[in-house]
């Protein structure tokens, strides 16, 4: 199982840096994203994580308190952390 660890500062630059790592990791089997150190999270990172969950629903994310709160603020907590994210997406 591959584990990718999120940095404390999950800003736009971090999201851009994470993207190729995630794409590469998808081909290697089950993936875990360790977000337990994430302290500052922005929209760009939430988008990447949400897209990762839609692309590969088996991806699991271990959130920090801050990551969970940011996801809750954005209404993405269920998508990111529940077991079946595709059912939770709201479509306009």
């Amino acid at each position, binding site marked *: 199982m591959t584990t990718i660890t999120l940095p404390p*500062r999950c*800003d*736009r*630059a971090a*999201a*851009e840096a994470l*993207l190729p790592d*995630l*794409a590469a990791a*998808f081909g290697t089997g089950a993936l875990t994203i360790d977000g337990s150190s994430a*302290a*500052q*999270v*922005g*929209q*760009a*990172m*939430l*988008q*990447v994580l*949400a*897209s*990762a969950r*839609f*692309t*590969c629903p088996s991806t699991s994310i271990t959130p920090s*308190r*801050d990551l969970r*709160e*940011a996801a*809750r*603020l*954005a*209404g*993405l907590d269920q*998508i990111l952390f529940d077991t079946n994210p595709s059912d939770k*997406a*709201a*479509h*306009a």
Partner: protein
Amino acid sequence: MTAEEIQGIFFVECEESLAAAEQGLAACKAGTQNADTINAIFRAVHSIKGGAGAFGFGALQGFTHTFETLLSDVREELVPITAPLVDLLLGALDVLSDHVSAARDEGDAPEDAALIAQLEAAMAVNLGGHGPAAVETPAPSEPNTSDDEEGFNIDLDALLDDISGAPEPAPAAGWILHLRPHAAAMRNGGEPLLLLRELTALGAECIACHTADLPPLDELDPCQGYLGWSFRVPAGVSEAQVRDIFDFVGENCPIAIGEDAAVPPCQIATRAAQGIQSIVAQGMAALGIAANQPAETSAAQVAEQISADKHTAAPLAPASAVASAAPSAPQGQSIRIDLIKLDKLIDTVGELVIAQAMLAQRLSGEAIGDNEELTLLESLTRDIQESAMAIRAQPIGSVFSRVPRILRELTASTGKHVNLVLSGEGTELDKTVIERLGEPLTHLIRNAVDHGIEDPAERLASGKSAEGTLTLSAEHRSGRIHIRICDDGRGINRERVLAKAVEKGLVGPDAQLSKEEIEMLIFAPGFSTAATITNVSGRGVGMDVVRANVKDLGGRITIESEEGKGTTFTLTLPLTLAISDGMIVKVGDQTLVVPLTHVVESLRPEARDVRGLGAERRMLNVRGRFIPVVPVSDAVGANGAVRDPQHGVLIVVDTESAGQAALLVDHIWDQRQFVIKSLESHYRSVDGVAGATILGDGRVALILNVDTLVASAVAPLREAAITREAA
């Protein structure tokens, strides 16, 4: 862009916002405001609040929050605009300015508790209106100091702390808000989650995050905005309150209101569109058109159109279409330039001017100086020089805009109400001159109000209106700028000024002075006629500093005063400090420059005009008044200089510290503009020398510091006189 650079831009924008708010409130004070005026003031304060929050300036953010809440009530006409309210808002603006200064200089935030209480008391909710309940002031947050290339420097810790303490979920009743941040909302430190934070702080609840546009990971561009949100906003929160949150981001985050409204559409520049954009950019480059922001937008629109039509266009076809359809650059576009780069440009242009002069002199020496190409080069060099100087030019309005606050403070301390009349605010002059103009201007204004304009009772008794009038004007004239500070006060009492000057020993009791000379005595060091010393002025330090500051700027100050009618101070300043006028003089084997600002007159004296004083000293009789003769050769160590004034030229100069003196030089060679080079930055500071310039023949000429040169030359003379008197 680093966090410091973004923060620097924030403070520049703060200054602009403060100036805009000052202008708007001045209109309110004059009763000429309209809805746009109030909106402009609100936007200015709101912009500062937005940046303050992003950079973690808690005290600034807290104060602006209260300030804008009251402004919001005014904008919605829940609170009427009255004179006391405008005064309160002006007071709040002054404190806001202090908050900005404290944030910028990392100083202590001003005491604002009492003013915040006043602002809150004036809000609609406390006046019995129907306005919204006062929103709790955001808690101050610690600034986030870490760098980031993308400028992401928002304190999300504080954000999340706020979220954890956010109100309980709002009841189901309320209204629906949809929002969609675009990519631009995430640029330059922007973070859409902050907007969501502000919404939840109002009690709004996120009911849906719209992820339908979110692509698979391999197609995702993290810099684009794919998410949209729907919020349920409590009924007690007004639409204006919500719109205020989004004022700061404008079109970068469109919103839609109502249950039936659609979420604003996603605007993603897809990879296909980006490819077309690239082709368009290439085409535009081929056509010599800059690929600026509007063109990018047009490219995206073209890409969208092409996508919708399912057509594949030839690469250059859209380029041509965009080239013809691209909107012309909007008027008034501007960019920010690092001042160091600008100074480098000015310096290089100075070198160009020197090189051109050297070339002209060389060609003239070869008897081919009179040709069309050289004339064209001269003309172009002058144009480039003027254009370069124009880049540094700023309107004097930036200095004038500080005056209303000075007057408010003076009104509070003296009880005198003064109307301010401004004209020529758009007159431009060099940034350095602007920066150094503030202090002397402030002194003159304080002096005009404290000494010039009478108390209301005295004014009424003399048939004037109770309120005084101060007029500030600026205009270009003969390549210089003239600034007038005119009051309608009591004018200068010359008898009193002369008596005071005699009392202080500044002039002899039998001195015969013209009325202009008497008026100029107020600039003498230590002179003051104020009966009582106030904290406004009257300590005798100020007017002499004013004159010194103006002279340092290469300017002059003159007075016109009519007793009972008022006084006008006129500052005549150069448009720039990089280039000045001077007399090129020869002293022995040296070529020197005497700045024209000091020169009163030049003459070749008769034998009877020069008297000896001791073995070495000589005095020049200038229309009955004796001034010391200062041989310049002694100061600069020139060899072979003229020692007899009758065989040389005496240049009568005016100095701050030593009055008038006559500089003895061999002869005057030329009078022209010269480019000033700092001696300190190229060598070191030298007494009696203000700088250097390069002449047309390539030689370096020193620019005399007339003040220090004369002061050091006449000091031994004065000491000798004092010793004689004592004996």
